[in-house]
């Protein structure tokens, strides 16, 4: 058994809003081995995004422990979490969240600005990342000159440019048509199989779910079902 890349023990998350407690996650346990492509489904409001945010170190659990990429997130302060995110996680969102005033290359370069490296090295990495997502020829295009699918590719390039161990994707195909979705999902499969990235993807689309090796069902704050999807085998971890 490969060692767990994501390990959650008894995680509770309660939002407190307008003087009422909103329990979202109630004693959740989860273990995702390195190199796995896991898919998280569940009804709206079941806490999928919340779970993803906890795993990505964007928020802290009310109780329980979260160990991701060899770090105990619940013990880290905000500064440490910020630095940890930049090194270990690539995020992909439904709405891409590209900076409209920057070119594709500049958008992809953003996470690299947090690292000390010569600009030639940065340029090389940006070109590589954009090449991986198939947009090597769109370096100087602005987001509004790109299609939705291309924008999401740029966002994926931005997520992988720092070569993180793990990719967290929240409904990455939620805004795309079937054909484009398929292309994006194949790209994620490539990242998983060829580059060995651990991926956790939230989706509502059952067809998207079939791209993963494992399907998790979240409902009312607990994992209801946890099943293997037949066709695909886990990526080999080097």
């Amino acid at each position, binding site marked *: 058994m490969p060692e767990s890349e994501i390990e959650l023990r008894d995680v509770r998350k309660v939002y407190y809003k307008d003087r009422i407690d909103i329990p979202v996650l109630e004693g959740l346990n989860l273990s995702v081995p390195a190199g796995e492509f896991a898919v998280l489904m569940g009804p709206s409001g079941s806490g999928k*995004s919340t779970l993803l*945010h906890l795993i990505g170190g964007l928020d802290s659990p009310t109780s329980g422990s979260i160990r991701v990429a060899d770090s105990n997130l619940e013990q880290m302060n905000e500064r440490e979490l910020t630095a940890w995110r930049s090194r270990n996680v690539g*995020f992909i969102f439904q709405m891409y969240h590209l900076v409209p*005033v920057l070119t594709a290359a500049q958008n992809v370069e*953003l996470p690299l600005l947090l690292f000390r490296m010569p600009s030639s090295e940065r340029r090389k990495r940006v070109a590589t990342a954009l090449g991986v997502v198939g947009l090597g020829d769109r370096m100087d295009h602005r987001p509004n000159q790109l299609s939705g699918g291309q924008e999401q590719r740029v966002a994926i390039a931005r997520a992988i440019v720092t070569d993180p161990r793990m990719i967290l994707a929240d409904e990455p195909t939620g805004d795309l048509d079937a054909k484009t979705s398929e292309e994006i999902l194949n790209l994620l499969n490539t990242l998983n199989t060829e580059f060995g990235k651990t991926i956790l993807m939230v989706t509502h689309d059952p067809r998207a779910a079939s791209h993963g090796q494992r399907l998790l069902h979240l409902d009312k704050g607990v994992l209801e079902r946890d099943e293997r999807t037949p066709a695909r085998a886990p990526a080999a971890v080097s």
Partner: protein
Amino acid sequence: MALPLYYNWRNLQRRKLSTTLTFIVVTVVVVVLCVLLSFTAGIRASLAATGTNLNLIVLKPGATAESTSVLVPDEIGRLVQTPGIALGSDGSPLMSRELCVQTTVPRRLSARDKEPAPANVAIRGVDPIAFDLHREVRIIDGRSFQSGTMEIVVGKAAHDRYEHTNIGDEIVLGRMENRIYKVVGVFDAGGATFESELWAPRTSISDSYLRRFDSSVVMRLQSVAATKAAVEFINGPTVQLEAKPEPQYYEDLSKKTQDIVVLSTILVSIMAMGAIFAVANTMFATVDGRRREIAMLRTIGFGKWAILVSFVVESLLICVSACSVGLVLSLLAGGVKQDFLSDTTWTVLAFEMKITPGILVAAFMLSVIVGVFGAITPALRASRMRIIDALRKA
């Protein structure tokens, strides 16, 4: 690690209108500051250059300036007895009787005006001895007037500014405006207010304006130490006039000017506050419009500090570039000669717009203060935003 400058620069271009408006506001504040400071510096320099502590100026008690003072020959006669008065080479007391009147002279045409605007100019009737007391006054072109003639010399600043003040020109003066004086020289007074005046023989002016009295007497003392006794004698029962050392007189004269300076300072402060609010308003709108972008930047690893700095830098980009434009405008206006109406004497003091290094620094500081104070609250809001909240809401 900080966000790159081009990120801020592009974002400024994204909202052209509000950037431009803020830019204009800051530019205006900078220009007003420059005008105010160079004006203050000009007045100060000109008043500081006027007068020496060795000279006492004597006026009628209660007169606020030479123009409202009347000294009759009897009173002047008693001044000769003043203790400590200096004597000239011929053994007579160094005392200059001066008669101040005023006239209107058209300004020289500048590129901007179509019609020459008239200005109130002071004319000082003096005897040749005046040049022994006002040693800063030197003829720099032509010659001095001859006693008893209708000749006139003009101060350098007046010469630069008014029509009919070239050597050989004629100026019509007199109560009935029927006496023609001929310009024979131009004088320098080391920057003193005299440079804004026209000087002519006292007897001629007295004649032309039918004045049988003088406005003031300036007397030279043997030493500064003699001041106290001399002033006490003149202010005392024997003479019953009012004496002041020249520098003090000009300083008192500038009190009104000081008021204007204080008022303008308040004005600039209010304008700067307005600019701060304009910047804050723009920056708040920016922050609100970029919530998700900020959340994304925080998500990929930019810290709170990077976000805070980025918004302050963005505001500084506007303010400092507006400052540069304001300074360039002020520099272009540099050398523009502006008259300042002294409301004590109702004559004009000429001053020149001049941007000194000190003014450059002050303008730069002001724009930085406006930029930082305007941006700090919105930037704090941006940096304190909770990532997950900003990611959720559209």
